[in-house]
């Protein structure tokens, strides 16, 4: 074992892992974090806490992670390179580890253009791949990115994102290979709606043997409504939503669409459980955390393993 991460232990046990996420509040309310975490805690092996997602200011991921850690749960802190340079990132990683966090996700982050501070200076001192390498060198070499030794290095289990649906498709496996070469331990993918395309990507991943070096958690997002599906298709960058998803939601009455969305997500997880190389699921139930138990149970992934 490289770390004390519960996610690492579950993956090492050979069982499918389940993670989900909590978006911290746009304010200081601790109870919101606790309520959301309580909804999902028995159904997941780790809880992502987003880092100023969509470039909107929120409570910091490490503060949110600390609250979740104090509840006896397992936070996965997200960190974007958009808002911090390498000094700030490393100092936050030391601080997060000191506060009990041992699993993190390295991301570049949505461009500030999307958020509520489009006038902010984007940092992007290093990219997500160099962030992975930095966190790995901190852990395995005990070195800061600048080369100096760390006394008591942080031992982070290192995650990253992958979007099999962004262009150019033929480069997407190579990009994963770069993250693997940089030292990533696990991947949470972009929300999958085009399952055929995801399986094509996965096959290439397996053919290259990358699934032996990194644990891939398939990203699952239940559609709440036809409106949500249409919005994601047209407005959210990097999303691939096939017409059959739209058509299926359009085919049921409005008040039945949420139920249909849950059914679709469960069917998808059942299908992907059989997909070679998939080591678990990352459920992004956007402002719909209360549905995570139903999804996990429906996919036959409950109870979660005790490790």
């Amino acid at each position, binding site marked *: 074992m490289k770390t004390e991460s519960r996610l690492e232990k579950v993956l090492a046990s050979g069982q499918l892992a389940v993670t989900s996420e909590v978006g911290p509040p746009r304010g200081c309310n601790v109870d919101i974090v606790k309520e959301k975490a309580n909804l999902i805690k028995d159904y997941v092996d780790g809880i992502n806490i987003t880092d100023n997602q969509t470039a909107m200011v929120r409570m910091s991921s490490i503060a949110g992670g600390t609250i979740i850690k104090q509840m006896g749960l397992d936070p996965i802190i997200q960190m974007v390179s958009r808002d911090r340079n390498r000094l700030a990132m490393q100092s936050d990683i030391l601080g997060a580890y000191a506060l009990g966090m041992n699993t993190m996700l390295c991301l*570049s982050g949505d461009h500030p253009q999307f958020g509520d501070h489009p006038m902010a200076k984007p940092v992007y001192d290093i990219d997500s791949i160099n962030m992975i390498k930095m966190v790995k060198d901190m852990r395995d070499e005990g070195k800061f990115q600048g080369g100096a030794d760390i006394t008591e290095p942080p031992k982070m289990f290192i995650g990253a994102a992958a979007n099999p649906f962004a*262009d*150019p498709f033929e480069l997407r496996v190579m*990009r994963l290979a770069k993250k693997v*070469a940089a030292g990533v331990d696990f991947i949470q993918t972009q929300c999958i709606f085009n399952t055929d395309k995801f399986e094509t990507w996965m096959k290439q991943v397996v053919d290259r043997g990358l699934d032996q070096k990194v644990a891939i958690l398939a990203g699952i997002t239940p559609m709440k409504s036809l409106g949500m599906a249409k919005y994601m298709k047209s407005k959210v*960058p*990097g999303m691939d939503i096939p017409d059959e998803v739209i058509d299926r939601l359009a085919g049921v009455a409005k008040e039945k669409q949420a139920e249909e969305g849950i059914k679709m997500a469960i069917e998808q997880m059942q299908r992907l459980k059989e997909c070679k190389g998939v080591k678990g699921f990352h459920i992004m139930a956007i402002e719909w955390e209360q549905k995570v138990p139903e999804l996990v149970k429906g996919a036959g992934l409950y109870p979660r393993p005790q490790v």
Partner: protein
Amino acid sequence: MITAEQKPLQEIFGYIAPYEKILVVGCNECVTVCAAGGRKEVGLLSSALRLHSVKAGKKLEVLEHTLERQCDPEYVDQLKELAGQVDAIVSLACGCGIQTVAAQYAIPVFPGVNTKFMGASESQGIWAERCMGCGDCMLGVTGGICPVARCSKSLMNGPCGGNSSGKCEISEDVDCAWQLIWNRLVELGIQDRYEELVAAKDWRPAGGGGPRKIIREDLAASKIITEDMA
């Protein structure tokens, strides 16, 4: 070249409001090419300033001059006589030229343009950013397309998840630099190069190490010798 755009007239009117005699100075280099601050624009702006003062019932005399190059003290010296006759100067050069003029004359010098970026002409009337002057050119490994200047996130190792049909997540009008790099690597048959990890960038040559300066000992020394001989 360095690109620029003329400032809003209202802003320039505001700068010169306290003065009765000003000089508008253009530059015959980059700002002439991008039609922001050459001889023609000096004439147009001067006319607009005169017209505005007449309408406002104010006295204003505007002198015009365009230098061969405004970022070089030797050329800026040529303004000595004109600068002595006016209360203030409006410079239509890039920020480098404006500062060179301001450094040489003890009267207020105002910018008449906003300096934008180092860019190239894409077609008639369209200029786009191509270089950020990072001081450590990596075009040799990115197929001649710069990810520092042209990727919205200056990513070193490939496109983020926001590339959709070759366009950047920030706008459909912005090409994804890494899509362009990838296309180019494929065209050159060297797409395997993509998998080489590009290390975290050292930003010191890009300005992270403080204001930058080039000292060419050979040229600097030869100038001193020439002066000595004179």
